[in-house]
């Protein structure tokens, strides 16, 4: 296999409240021999909220991010479902609407950039599965996760809208996604099947509709707990933040104890590949994962 090279769009969260996501991603890439160039020029994707305020501006800023991946001639990979969605939505809008593309490029020309549409955009999860390959990952496992029941939590923005993700982002059936389950199996863990694995975590209305947010997170966490999960794993740091940071308040809302460690997808892979504790960075979690290593 020739060496895989990607341009990494880190997103805001991995640079601030979830540094463990960035360190574990880089550690996994190093273990697998995948070359990563961080797009230090990139800005925030707008997280769907900038899109609500000013959709055109959001397209301009996302197109600029993609320009820098295009300059490197690389596929842009994301480590956040919402970054993936918003970058891919801009790409789709510009690639299918020449008038919009021209209007955006008129702005980008002012800073010496041009969006061409030459780079694919892909979540790291699907780069690992579809390009590196599950069998190749399996060969590198040094700490099999066979002692862990793992609840995969897919996160909305990697699986819906399915049409957007069809071509280059996994192409999952949003009503029955399987990629994380397959990855867990490749790492020799036990994937938990539960109804809420493809549901919403509530992150995006945390401020204005707090009760909705808490109930959605609570439904998913409790479903995983009732299905005998030891940990939950997600490819989205926003799902992680909602599910990890708010378990106290979610417990109150749901009237039941909610205690479940929530790992980022790259942390789980890093664990199985034998990366260091510092690289995995579990110390940054609010809900501590205490029994991750085999007895």
């Amino acid at each position, binding site marked *: 296999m020739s060496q895989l090279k990607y341009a990494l769009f880190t997103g*805001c*969260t991995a*640079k*601030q*409240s*979830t*540094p463990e996501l960035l360190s574990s991603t880089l550690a996994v890439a190093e273990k697998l021999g995948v070359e990563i160039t961080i797009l230090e*020029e*990139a*800005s*925030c994707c*707008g*997280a*769907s*909220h*900038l*899109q*609500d*305020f*000013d*959709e*055109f*501006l959001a397209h*301009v*800023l996302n197109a*600029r991010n993609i320009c820098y991946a295009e300059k490197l001639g690389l596929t842009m990979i994301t480590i956040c479902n919402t970054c993936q969605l918003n970058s891919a939505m801009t790409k789709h809008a510009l690639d299918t609407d020449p008038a919009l593309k021209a209007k955006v490029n008129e*702005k980008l020309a*002012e*800073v010496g*950039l041009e969006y061409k549409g030459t780079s694919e955009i892909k979540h790291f999860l699907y780069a690992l599965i579809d390009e590196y390959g599950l069998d190749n990952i399996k060969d590198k496992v040094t700490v099999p996760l066979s002692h862990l029941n793992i609840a995969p939590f897919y996160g*909305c*923005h990697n699986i*819906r*809208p*399915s049409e957007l993700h069809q071509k280059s982002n996994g192409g999952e*059936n*949003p*009503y*029955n996604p399987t990629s994380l389950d397959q990855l867990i199996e490749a790492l020799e863990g036990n994937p938990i099947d539960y*109804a809420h694995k493809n*549901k*919403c975590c*509530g992150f*995006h*209305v945390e*401020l*204005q*509709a*707090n*009760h*909705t947010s808490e*109930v*959605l997170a609570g439904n998913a966490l409790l479903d995983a707990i009732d299905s005998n999960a030891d940990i939950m794993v997600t490819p989205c740091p926003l799902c992680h933040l909602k599910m990890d*940071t*708010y378990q*106290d*308040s979610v417990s109150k809302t749901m009237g039941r104890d909610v205690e479940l460690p929530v790992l980022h997808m790259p942390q789980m892979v890093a664990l199985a590949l034998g990366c260091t504790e510092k690289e995995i960075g579990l110390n*940054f*979690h*609010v809900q501590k994962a205490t029994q991750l290593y085999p007895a």
Partner: protein
Amino acid sequence: MFTEKYKKITIKAFRFNVETDYLPYYKTYEMEVENNELILDLLNRIKWEHDGSFSYRRSCRHGICGSCSIKVNGKPVLACKENAWDMIKLFGDELIFDPQSKKRAVKDMIIDKGDFWEKHAAVKPFVVADIDPHPENETKMSMAQVENFLDSDYCIQCGNCHYACPALEVNEEFFGPAAFAAAYRFTIDPRDEAGTERLEITAQPAQGIWDCVKCFECAEACPKDVNPIEKITKLHNMQFEQNVARRNVATKHAEGFVKSIKKNGFLDEADIVLYSEGPLGMHKHVKTALKMLKVGKIHFTDALPFVDNMPKSKNLDEIQKLIEISQTNKLPKI
């Protein structure tokens, strides 16, 4: 038996009669399904070949009346439009038939859709205009005006998006995606004069678009590709464009992204909460903030106005320039 033309499958169908059953249950039916059969054909076959009491709504059989919507293995479908083999390809040879909303089930697949119609009606889903009852000419629209509907006029009120919406499941006041798509459809209509009113109705906290959780379930559920969440985003933008948006936690959160990106390139996660909530609203976040502080997710210095420890995007000047020349919307001061 598996041949090219037939597949043997098991259907588990939700059964419930609100008048006689204490709890719902599932009944299993086995049948060989031909490759050109629709989900509606399978509903018919359950009723005609297995159990005449099995109940579901159906009418036009042409994907236009919106009556025959159910869920197949959790996926909202219009039964008369969905090929059964496509569902078998997605979910295997055990198909589970559920009503759109189990908690609203009246008899088997039939639900009480009253909440849907009530919320749909609340956004004034009709053209409001003083129209000459005896016009001499038809009203004409340009191609650009027609394209601006973005297919929102294709909605057949089947309710698939409405009953797929998780925000609505938790918050019963929430109007839901179908009502919002209708609000967009009539607000964008060049004949209509109630646009501002509709934008105000859909800007209300709890009921309106700001409670959308952005899960895209509605986009996935729609059998007519209306893409309701796209219309929700359009309504958000229109509220700012037409000066309907008022300063509150949700609008400040959306606008605050520009402020933060202008300063850092990245979003300042701590600052966006402070900016959206205002200093008086921060008490709600103290407990969480302390927990995040303890594990190093945020830092003490984040709260100090004179310490700027935010990471900055490289070539930040480009981002600032692009915001300056591309920003189209503003948040009013009040």
